[in-house]
């Protein structure tokens, strides 16, 4: 017995040293050395290369050697693995290593343990899911998924995540295996399997239905890591709108509650915050769930409030969670108190000294403004400053903010700011987006069109590459509404139209304006040609001629100018003699500098113009009835019938024309069939609808026709004139349709609650575009929303009445608060730099964040300011009403007792009382202390950072936290905490 014990004891040290792996083989040692020394030598010699060419010669040489040794059969797997890692390094440096791809797969297949792993890692790094060779790996992956070795399972699952395509066959092969792994006893494997499910749902959203059961189970997994992936999957399902949401809200809320109570393992804490990644995913899912869903939202309110209160402002991560919480609050059915809380936090974000937090603050404010527009009033000065910020990233976010806060009163200023930003050097993609936004704003708010046209002219003053494609169409659409006034000779022409024409002429005087401007201006001139009567005709012509002869213009733009000339001639504005002279001149010059082979259309048009001058036919554009169109071209019927009787071929549409010569002999049988089919259809077609392609005859008749059809100038460079006519009529119809659509879009809002209501929804839609967290497809329909809204309103008529009453007697209070009124009107709706206003605003600002002893008066003023801003911002008082009626009920008796008790007339003041007393005391002071701390620390840290910066490449500081703190001033305030935290961890580990 003692022998046995002795033996056991004797074997213990050996067992400890070797572990359960048995005796260490001699072969492992040299392998490890090869990997170590040769590999490091390679890296050293690469980094020793002084120039790029030196490096290139070395690496191409090395690659050749690697290729040779990979192709040999006698190399061990360890060596292959090492060579593959060299390849990865070469790939990192940007060299082509495609010859080694197959070897990565081979190693993953044949190797065991470490070699297998190396092969997999190399395959993951070098291949991608669409690579054809990755298919070869599938078999290996399948085998390794079935293996009992956990590490093999893990690496195979990672490979699956990276390399499996969205191909249904491969997925259906993998999925059962992965699903089995969801039941694996080890959480490491379960988590990776869950990751694959997530990726699979992302790749093929349509196949997820039969997975829902499994996904739901993941939420109840005992390991928080697996559970967090489960939440991610739910979020993904919610985003694709395929998730049933009945019990999910309560489940997620209970998880969040658990996290906040810290009932989950403390090893999952990150810098003192429990499971922040999971928290953020839950918040996002809640935002999806609570959107337009009152019941769900109400169950979240207490939780969100708790979350806002519990924030530890000393940890960086908590800012990320706080931002997400604010976004969630703005997404769900709004709750006034929560929004006020959120706006207080946002203010602190924006006012922070750290650029990172500023950026996030601007983003949060952009979200917040969509639901509570009054929250901007406190931060307007900061926003104005941020507009001039040197950091382009912050600038562009502020521009986003400006766009979302535009309303009727401030839109002009916003637009001029946007145009200012346009002038700054930036990249193409943002330019086009910015122009698009300006156009959207002008379309939305420019009622008389003059101001919007001004903006357009300013944008087009110079040639731009990043113009939106449909810009001309959009502008013309907008202008045609202005020009569509009732045409009556007795009445005066509206001033707006006159100024439009004046501006167009001014625009044409510019030498280097963009061609879009030429198009638009010439269109305006031809539409309102009668307004040019007072202008000397040779001046008009010379102006057009000058533009026509600009070398940078293309044919299309020139055609626009010519149709303008035609229209002026027909309207009797310019004398035929002047035109003839000008047109001849243009033609001569045109031939001289144009490539004549391409510009037949232009020449033809010029000739037409000349002929038109010879026998002028003046048409009074005001007398023309442009509403009647003959789309079937019935006036051509006789002509077509005559031609058809006289041996002419019937017209065949361009797409149906087929030349039998081009048919490939291989497809001869098909071609015959197809050909006969098309012939049959042609012969059966009605001859009245088609026109002949006999261009000579058509040309003769065309002049008369073109006069009737006016001056749109949308002529395509198509030799067949009949086609161009069709196109023209189509174009008109399309325009008509567009106009109808636009009208429908403009006026459809009126049969719902109010205009401002629709506006509100529009804003929301904009946001759903930006951050598609809420892809609930049914709820995006705003008609449904307005119906819901009206329902909600109907349920509480007394409340509505009360609010209306509140709103309708502002006169008495307006009297003594004229000062306040100015401040709320705001810097942003006026010139932001004028001194008077700034003073007012500052005054208002100070008042609003005044001490608590003033709280009563301040509150009073707040009440006023909110009422006022509402009145100004929307289309009158209706918005105010809506806005109030959106107010959801309070959270609960416990959390907001004052809400219930409050008389509705004191509703605002009650809320603000709460804010003043609670917030001003603790959070403001807290915030101040944090920021002052950060400023103090900043200096010391900078000094340290400088010292370190002069040091060597590798920083020998053992404390990661403090070093990181020294890198960035932003986070300096948390340095102390971080240090302590790290040391804590050290202790734990040791």
């Amino acid at each position, binding site marked *: 017995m003692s022998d046995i014990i002795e033996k056991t004891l004797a074997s213990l040290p050996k067992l400890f040293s070797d572990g359960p792996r048995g005796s260490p083989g001699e072969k492992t040692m040299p392998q490890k050395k090869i990997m170590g020394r040769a590999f490091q030598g390679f890296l050293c010699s690469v980094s020793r290369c002084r120039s790029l060419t030196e490096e290139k010669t070395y690496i191409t040489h090395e690659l050749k050697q690697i290729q040779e040794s990979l192709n040999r059969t006698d190399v061990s797997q360890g060596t292959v693995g090492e060579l593959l890692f060299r390849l990865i390094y070469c790939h990192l440096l940007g060299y082509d290593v495609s010859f080694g791809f197959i070897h990565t797969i081979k190693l993953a297949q044949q190797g065991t343990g470490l070699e297998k792993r190396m092969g997999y890692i190399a395959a993951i790094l070098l291949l991608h899911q669409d690579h054809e060779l990755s298919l070869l790996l599938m078999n290996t992956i399948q085998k390794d998924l079935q293996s009992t*070795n956990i590490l093999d399972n893990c690496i195979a699952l990672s490979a699956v995540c990276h390399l499996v395509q969205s191909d249904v066959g491969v997925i259906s092969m993998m999925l059962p295996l992965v699903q089995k792994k969801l039941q694996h006893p080890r959480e490491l494997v379960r*988590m990776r399997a869950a990751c694959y499910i997530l990726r699979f749902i992302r790749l093929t959203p349509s196949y997820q239905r039969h997975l829902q059961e499994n996904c739901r189970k993941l939420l109840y997994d005992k390991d928080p890591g697996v559970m967090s992936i489960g939440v991610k999957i739910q979020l993904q399902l919610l985003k694709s709108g395929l998730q049933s949401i009945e019990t999910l809200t309560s489940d997620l809320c209970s998880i969040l509650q658990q996290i906040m109570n810290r009932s989950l393992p403390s090893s999952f804490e990150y810098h003192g915050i429990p499971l922040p990644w999971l928290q953020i995913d839950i918040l996002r899912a809640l935002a999806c769930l609570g959107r337009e869903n009152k019941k769900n939202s109400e169950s979240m309110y207490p939780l969100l409030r708790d979350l806002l209160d519990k924030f530890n402002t000393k940890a960086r991560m908590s800012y990320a969670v706080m931002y997400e919480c604010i976004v969630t609050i703005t997404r769900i059915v709004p709750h006034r108190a929560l929004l006020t809380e959120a706006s207080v936090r946002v203010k602190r974000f924006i006012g922070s000294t750290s650029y990172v937090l500023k950026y996030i603050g601007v983003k949060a404010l952009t979200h917040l403004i969509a639901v509570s527009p009054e929250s901007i009033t406190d931060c307007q000065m900061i926003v104005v400053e941020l507009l001039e910020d040197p950091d382009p990233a912050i600038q562009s976010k502020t521009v986003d903010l400006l766009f979302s806060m535009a309303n009727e009163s401030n839109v002009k200023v916003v637009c001029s700011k946007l145009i200012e930003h346009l002038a700054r050097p930036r990249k193409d993609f943002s330019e086009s987006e910015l122009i698009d936004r300006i156009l959207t704003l002008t379309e939305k708010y420019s009622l008389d069109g003059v101001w919007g046209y001004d903006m357009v002219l300013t944008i087009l003053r110079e040639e731009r590459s990043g113009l939106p494609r449909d810009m001309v169409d959009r502008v013309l659409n907008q202008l045609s509404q202005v020009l569509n006034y009732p045409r009556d000779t007795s009445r005066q022409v509206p001033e707006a139209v006159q100024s439009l024409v004046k501006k167009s002429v001014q625009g044409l005087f510019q030498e280097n304006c963009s061609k879009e401007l030429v198009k638009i201006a010439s269109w305006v001139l031809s539409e309102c040609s009668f307004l040019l009567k007072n202008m000397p005709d040779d001046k008009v012509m010379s102006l057009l001629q000058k533009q026509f002869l600009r070398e940078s213009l293309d044919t299309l733009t020139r055609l626009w100018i010519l149709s303008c000339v035609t229209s002026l001639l027909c309207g009797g504005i310019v004398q035929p003699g002047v035109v003839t002279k000008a047109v001849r001149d243009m033609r001569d010059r045109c031939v001289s500098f144009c490539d004549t082979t391409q510009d037949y259309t232009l020449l033809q048009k010029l000739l037409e113009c000349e002929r038109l001058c010879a026998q002028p036919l003046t048409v009074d554009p005001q007398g023309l009835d442009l509403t009647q169109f003959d789309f079937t071209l019935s006036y051509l019927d006789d002509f077509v019938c005559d031609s058809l009787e006289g041996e002419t071929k019937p017209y065949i549409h361009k797409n149906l024309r087929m030349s039998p010569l081009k048919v490939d002999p291989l497809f001869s049988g098909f071609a015959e069939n197809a050909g006969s089919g098309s012939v049959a259809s042609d012969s059966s077609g009605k001859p009245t609808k088609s026109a002949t392609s006999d261009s000579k005859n058509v040309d003769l008749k065309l002049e008369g026709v073109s006069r009737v059809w006016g001056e749109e100038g949308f002529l395509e460079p198509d030799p067949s004139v009949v086609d161009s006519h069709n196109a023209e009529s189509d174009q008109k119809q399309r325009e008509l349709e567009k106009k109808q659509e636009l009208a429908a879009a403009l006026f459809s809002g009126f049969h719902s609650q109010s205009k401002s209501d629709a506006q509100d929804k529009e804003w929301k839609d904009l946001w759903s575009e930006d951050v598609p967290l809420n892809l609930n497809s049914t709820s995006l329909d705003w008609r449904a929303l307005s119906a819901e809204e009206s329902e909600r309103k109907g349920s509480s008529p007394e409340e509505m009445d009360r609010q209306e009453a509140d709103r309708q007697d502002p006169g008495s209070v307006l009297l003594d608060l004229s000062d306040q009124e100015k401040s709320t009107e705001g810097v942003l709706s006026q010139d932001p730099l004028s001194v008077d206003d700034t003073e007012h605003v500052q005054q208002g600002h100070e008042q609003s964040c005044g001490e608590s002893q003033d709280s009563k008066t301040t509150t009073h003023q707040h009440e006023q300011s909110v009422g006022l801003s509402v009145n100004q911002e929307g289309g009158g008082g209706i918005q105010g009403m809506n806005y109030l009626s959106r107010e959801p009920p309070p959270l609960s008796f416990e959390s907001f007792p004052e809400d219930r008790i409050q008389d509705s007339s004191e509703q605002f003041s009650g809320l603000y009382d709460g804010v003043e007393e609670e917030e001003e005391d603790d959070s403001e002071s807290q915030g101040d202390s944090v920021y002052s701390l950060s400023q103090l620390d900043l200096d010391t840290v900078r000094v340290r950072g400088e010292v370190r910066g002069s040091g060597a*490449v590798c920083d*020998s500081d053992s404390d*990661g936290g403090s*070093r990181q703190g020294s890198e960035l001033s932003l986070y300096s305030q948390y340095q102390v905490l971080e240090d302590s935290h790290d040391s804590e961890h050290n202790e734990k580990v040791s």
Partner: protein
Amino acid sequence: MMQFMLLFSRQGKLRLQKWYIAHPDKLKKKITRELVALVLSRKPKMCSFLEWKDLKVVYKRYASLYFCCAIEAEDNELLTLEVIHRYVELLDKYFGSVCELDIIFNFEKAYFMLDELLLGGEVQETSKKNVLKAIAAQDLLQEDEAFETALKEHGLY
């Protein structure tokens, strides 16, 4: 979801790259070149976020290394900053005060670790301990190849 992650030095030399979306090599090189130039031209008093094409780029400098991640427009930038920080923490814990040379000479380890942290572009594990445990398991594997043979002997493989 994260699109890709790049590590590069102050001189603009790429040290690590990890792509979670499929791009041809040419495009990858182009993106890398443009981004590195863009990030290196940023001044220290600017925020760590960039808008680049339809992506958002989050970067942070640790000593002489820039960590740069591209995320989708809807993602949370602050969170990405923390992912970077966590990765650095992990590297630090593993190498014991990590420096650029550690990453150059042990880049396979850096890749291992990144794989433990991010899978398919999603943060995979929120517990630092578990990540380090997984890495340690692999190191065991690396230290002793006979592990597999032992498993075979016991009929587990």
